[in-house]
């Protein structure tokens, strides 16, 4: 297990390096920049600005400087929000994004797994059909539309829940964002879980387990759950990426103070420093979380470790 973990960490490193490099060069070499405003800046001002952000040095020096500082946790300055370091903005936004994302992730995974099991055990009976409908809605309706519709229904017409904002402790404000974020994830998980549970229940080793008389409950929890979870767990990595990138939108719709909001603002303002910083950070975050998911996978399916 330890060897497997080491190997996985080592194989994630080149991905991280390439991701940082690609992001850096795409953004730096792209035409246009944060200082191409409506009005042209006087040449001297422009030169000073470029010197201030070290944009006048050769690009590879900028690159190594950037990577070196990044390793130390410094993602460079914002180029539009004056006086702000990207890492400061991340420090403000990250706890919220992580809290929102992980809440939605955990809620969605648990609901999805349970719903999938219920649907599999009641194959082609009413719980199964209810699930099909919920899955359909979750997968088809894009999150921004789902957000707008739920806001309208529960926030404006019914007035059951606050329609947006975050005042740091009113958990009701999180209900709608978490729902929007979690729904598609739960939908996909439940669909995967249903399929793999049905397959597992039909497998020979489940028949063996039943032949031992251990009962349906133990059969489900001890014998069927773990193997049936394997395809679900292999989806958790990509699922988490979708979910975290989905939180970009959800934070914007509901006016929540996470990194997503800064990222979108940065993109709208063409704030290259902030876009680069947030992207690199997001990539790192997703790689780390994927790594964790892989380790869970190896624990579930012992055969993986020996490959």
């Amino acid at each position, binding site marked *: 297990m330890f060897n497997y973990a080491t190997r996985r960490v080592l194989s994630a490193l*080149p*991905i991280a390096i*390439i*991701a940082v490099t690609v*992001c850096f060069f*795409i*953004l730096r070499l*792209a*035409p*246009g920049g944060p200082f191409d405003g409506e009005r042209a800046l006087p040449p001297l001002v422009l030169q000073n600005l470029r010197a201030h952000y070290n944009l006048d040095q050769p690009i590879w020096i900028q690159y190594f400087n950037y990577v070196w500082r990044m390793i130390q946790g410094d993602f460079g300055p914002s180029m539009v929000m004056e006086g702000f370091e990207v890492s400061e903005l991340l420090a403000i936004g990250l706890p919220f994004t992580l809290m929102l994302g992980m809440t939605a992730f955990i809620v969605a995974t648990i609901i999805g797994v349970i719903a999938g099991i219920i649907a599999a055990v009641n194959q082609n009976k009413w719980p199964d059909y209810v699930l099909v409908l919920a899955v*359909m809605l979750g*997968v*088809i*309706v*894009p*999150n*921004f*539309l789902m957000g*707008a*519709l739920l*806001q*309208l229904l529960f926030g*404006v017409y019914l007035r059951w829940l606050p329609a947006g904002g975050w005042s740091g402790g009113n958990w009701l404000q999180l209900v709608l964002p978490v729902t929007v974020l979690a729904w598609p994830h739960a939908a*996909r998980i439940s669909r995967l879980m249903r399929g793999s549970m049905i397959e597992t229940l039909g497998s020979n080793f489940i028949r063996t387990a039943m032949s031992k008389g251990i009962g349906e409950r133990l059969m489900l929890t001890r014998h069927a759950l773990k193997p049936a979870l394997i395809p679900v767990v292999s989806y958790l990595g*990509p699922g988490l*990426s*979708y979910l*975290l*990138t989905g939180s*970009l*939108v959800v934070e*914007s*719709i509901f006016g929540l103070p996470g990194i997503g909001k800064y*990222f*979108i603002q940065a*993109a*709208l303002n*063409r704030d*290259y420093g902030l*876009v680069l910083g947030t*992207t690199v950070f*997001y*990539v790192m975050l*997703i*790689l780390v979380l*994927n790594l964790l998911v892989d380790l869970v996978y190896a624990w579930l399916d012992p055969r993986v470790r020996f490959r």
Partner: protein
Amino acid sequence: MAGITGKDRTLTAYADTLERLDAPKGRSLTQDAMRRLIANRAALISIFLVTAIVLIAFVGSYFVPWDGTKVDWGAIRKPPNFESGHYLGTDQNGRDLLARLLQGTQMSLIVAGVATVVSVVVGVVYGAISGYFGGRVDALMMRFVDIMYALPYILFVIILVVIFGRSPVLLFVGIGLLEWLTMARIVRGQTLSFKEKEFVEAARAGGAKPFTIIMRHIVPNLTGPVVIYATLTVPEIIIVESFLSYLGLGVQEPLTSLGTLISNGAPVAEVLPWLLVAPAIVLVTLLLCLSYIGDGLRDALDPKDR
């Protein structure tokens, strides 16, 4: 955003089946699948609906009494009204919603089409080169694909948006440039198996250049996967487009798309609900139908499933 159609899995399963069959049987697999798709009622209705939406979006604007950019000063913020010819009402600027909706649907479809074509071309060329040359080139190229898979691609889309700015065409060429990974994998696998076949050997013995062999002998055999891939890619791109437009990063005024319309409609939905509801219905219908077609394709290709 990616993944409403389960594109990767459907296609990979299809390509695996193809690889296990001989070339002539491979064609009949595709035909067989198409026959089964037509027999699937939900998929058939969806095909009709999508065709109808496409036709109405492109032809309908000639039959609508109002123009999408024209302001009707007498009818600002008016609900649907048949007498004035504003069948779906007007927006805050007095523009006819039906006309705007047709224009927006058109834009969303064009964008999806362009991006799909781009991704097919890139995927086919990349995959064919990787598979045909094999060895170290192949290993390197596929390693790159693996890495791209591991990255959150919507972030790259947004970076492209930042770079390409406000030109919708460039923007969606950009999106297409990020959607080709699965296609490349499939094409590579197919090329690897085709290049051992007699007809390719014969062409090579006849002195054909690699490029000619790829274009004339390998690519034409990929029609099945390409059609399926395109069908499954369109809804994903529509979602990405509407998502970006919703964030204000995509199609900009005075042009419009489904995402832009929803984005404009959402904040005023409390008082002018039709501005949100109409584009939402079109978007959801389109996505629903395309996903039924995708499901139908998957079932058609994998008869043992269910």
